[in-house]
């Protein structure tokens, strides 16, 4: 493997890993804020217990999101310095804005929230978690603004003297239609993740307690866990619809903006009208079209996803061969070394990641439906299947997000900055041109091994902590620690300490 392959693997590993923690953070912060708001508003202790319980799980998760995020920012310069030189004038701005506008807020106000239970007025303390909740979502906006520009560069011009992209309009970059499809899609997916997490854990607890038949346990199930199941389920339903709708918008944009990605999502070799969506396809891994055979197809669906038409001339989807031909004519058939350039993304990876994304996202729908049914009309369910579905559903939105990112990034290849069909041709960059020139394969390999091992260890610790703290359940007793309720003596032990 050369430095390019290693750098790509490293980016894939560190990004997918980072994005395990990110969606849960983005979705769970607002849910914890809602729980705490309910506590402050109603004074009902159930909401304080849930806030403390899910707040703890949120913090365990947040820590890994933070530390793996630093790697993301440094990695562009370390492994992809030529990319950074080409795009820095445009791409650096949203990253810097994220740090200034969002990351400062989330880390500072989270510190206030964690340690401030007994220091801050109840409403001010509540405002802190809301500040975190808003900021994590703002973070997502700026990061997706940067990523959307790589998918669909707008608002930039090309400087032939320096050979670099230059920003022409920040407003165009922040108004990029790719961003306004990707941002709600990612945020909806994050809420789906958090809703499933809350509903899944609470459903498991509700069933577990209800099955003991002890009045205290059943009361706890009814009084504390059932409301959390309902909250999580409502969030899942709304977010699930949001994911589907925004995903549909993204499909149409992708068809216009990155036809190669759409074609490879369907492993469609030659363009066709009324293209089917296949559930299963077999092929060899040579990335050539000859071996591809579609089995089990839904007629016209692929065309609909891309064009909005099931059949007729307007439903024409170009295949990867058409895209290869178009790009070769427009951007050249060979690279500097005289080797032919393949403009076809890895078909097996894009095809399957696209399906796995959709399939796993649908997985949590099963929990939502089961939870709705079993909790209808105020019921407290003791059905073990609800508990099983609840636990099984928790990982599915995480996996869906991972595959979604693998799809959208691998489907953009061979580009790191995909050319905009209605934009300026010079604003484009092949991934192979983005890699650092002075970094040896040995160095990239070293960092890749170090990060992979370290991340592996951290994943085990993260999982065990989340798992065990979830099994601990809500705190048995809670009290109002706010200064207005508990007084402000200075020699009392801290309400929270590391």
């Amino acid at each position, binding site marked *: 493997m050369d430095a390019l392959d290693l750098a790509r693997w490293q980016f894939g590993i560190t990004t997918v890993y980072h994005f395990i923690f990110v969606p849960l953070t983005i979705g769970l912060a607002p849910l914890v804020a809602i729980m705490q708001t309910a506590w402050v508003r109603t004074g009902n202790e159930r909401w304080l217990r849930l806030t403390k319980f899910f707040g703890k799980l949120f913090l365990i998760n947040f*820590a890994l999101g933070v530390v793996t995020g630093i790697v993301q920012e440094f990695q562009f310069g370390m492994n992809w310095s030529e990319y950074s030189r080409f795009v820095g004038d445009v791409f650096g701005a949203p990253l810097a804005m994220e740090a*200034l506008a969002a990351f400062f807020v989330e880390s500072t106000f989270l510190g*206030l929230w*964690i340690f401030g239970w007994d220091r801050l007025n109840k409403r001010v303390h509540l405002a802190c978690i809301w500040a975190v909740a808003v900021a994590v979502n703002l973070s997502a906006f700026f990061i997706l603004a940067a990523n959307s520009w790589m998918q669909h560069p707008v608002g930039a011009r090309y400087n032939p003297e320096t050979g670099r992209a230059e920003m022409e309009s920040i407003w165009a970059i922040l108004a990029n239609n790719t961003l306004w499809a990707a941002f709600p899609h990612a945020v909806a997916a994050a809420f789906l993740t958090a809703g499933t997490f809350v509903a899944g854990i609470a459903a498991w607890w509700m069933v577990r307690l209800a099955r003991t038949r002890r009045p205290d346990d059943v009361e706890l199930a009814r009084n504390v866990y059932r409301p959390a199941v309902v909250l999580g389920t409502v969030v899942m339903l709304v977010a699930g619809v949001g994911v589907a709708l925004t995903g549909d918008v993204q499909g149409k944009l992708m068809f216009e903006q990155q036809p190669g990605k759409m074609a490879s999502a369907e492993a469609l070799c030659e363009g066709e009208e009324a293209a089917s969506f296949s559930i299963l396809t077999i092929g060899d891994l040579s990335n050539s079209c000859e071996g591809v055979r579609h089995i089990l197809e839904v007629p016209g669906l692929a065309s609909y996803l891309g064009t909005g038409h099931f059949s007729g001339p307007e439903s024409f989807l170009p295949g990867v061969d058409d895209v290869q031909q178009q790009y070769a004519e427009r951007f050249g058939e060979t690279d500097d070394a005289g080797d032919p350039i393949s403009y076809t993304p890895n078909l097996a990876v894009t095809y399957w990641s696209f399906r796995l994304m959709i399939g796993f996202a649908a997985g949590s729908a099963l929990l939502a439906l089961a939870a709705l049914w079993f909790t209808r009309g105020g019921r407290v369910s003791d059905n073990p299947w609800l508990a099983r579905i609840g636990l099984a559903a928790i990982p599915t939105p995480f996996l869906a997000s991972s595959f979604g990112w693998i799809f959208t990034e691998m489907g953009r290849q061979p580009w790191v900055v995909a050319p905009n069909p209605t934009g300026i041709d010079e604003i484009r960059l092949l991934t192979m041109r983005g890699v650092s020139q002075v970094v040896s394969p040995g160095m990239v390999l070293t960092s890749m091994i170090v990060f992979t091992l370290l991340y592996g260890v*951290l994943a085990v610790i993260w999982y*065990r902590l989340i798992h065990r703290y979830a099994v601990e359940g809500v705190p048995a007793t809670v009290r109002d620690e706010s200064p207005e309720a508990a007084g402000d003596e200075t020699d009392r032990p801290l309400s929270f*300490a*590391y």
Partner: protein
Amino acid sequence: MDLALVWFLIIAVLWTGYLVLEGFDFGVGMLMSLLPRGDAAHREKERRLLLNTIGPVWDGNEVWLITAGGATFAAFPEWYATLFSGFYLPLLLILVALIVRGVAIEYRGKISDAVWARRCDLAIQVGSWVPAVLWGVAFANLVRGVQLDEAHQYVGGFWALINPFSLLGGATTLVLFLLHGSVFVALKTDGDIRARARRWAGVLAPVAVLVAGGWAVWAQVAFSATWTWAVVAVAAAALVGVVLTNRAGREGWAFGLSAVTIVAAAVLIFGSMYPDVMPGLDGGNALTVAEASSTPYTLTIMTWVAAFLTPLVILYQGWTYWVFRRRLTVDHIPAPAGLTWKKIKESAF
């Protein structure tokens, strides 16, 4: 004043903020292995006490680094690209150190177990000592100049970054952060540990005068501009001030003056680099502020963003320090609230 220079100054400010704020975080982390006294249980309480002096603020302090990195990317892409690809291995070490440190701080109390606490302490030690030295090594190399080719790519390799001047630079940040951490602990705690922190500060301050003073004079004589002599003088006076105020028990003043020392060190570093962002070794192929900068449009946008948001950041971070202004003692540290190791190992799902 042209925008590239403005942004050079803003990035200097962001780095300065980072070094001043995370400087005492690193110092407190390092002191966790040096300050605690007494029997095992008491030492554990004191380690937790130290950790909790930075508990609410350490993460916000680290964001100054993220912002410095992002702002460098936005305002000086060439600088960002050359620096981060060139200083690859030191940055890798720093990243690993910051990762294990951050996780250890957050997870230490999640499991109540002596072995777990020791492992987390080890991670906090690595995560505090390593960056405390490496940031000095990295910045000293920027003052000294590094080997660049005509395309401004760094071609010196890893070992060229290790030289007597950069090692002394590493020792400088190490001792300054240790001192900064000990005056911070003296300011933020009460009781026996406060007195010990002051004694440490009393020992560290003269060492800092020697080490940092030696490095600064070397930098001045070999690499820096004339005007930065004034900065060296400020740093020296501030360090003497730390000695005096610390001895007099004026802990707020001692902390402020220690911060002034670090600010002065940062001004010396960036002042010596200017007008380059990556000075060449012996002046060759330097990457200048003007060459490295983004276009005026990008810089204008970013100036508005920074001018609006940076004061806000300073305001709410300052408020955080006000909220948690109370001195902590070992009596403030509650009983461990984490799950036991036995529970962690059980499986119930």
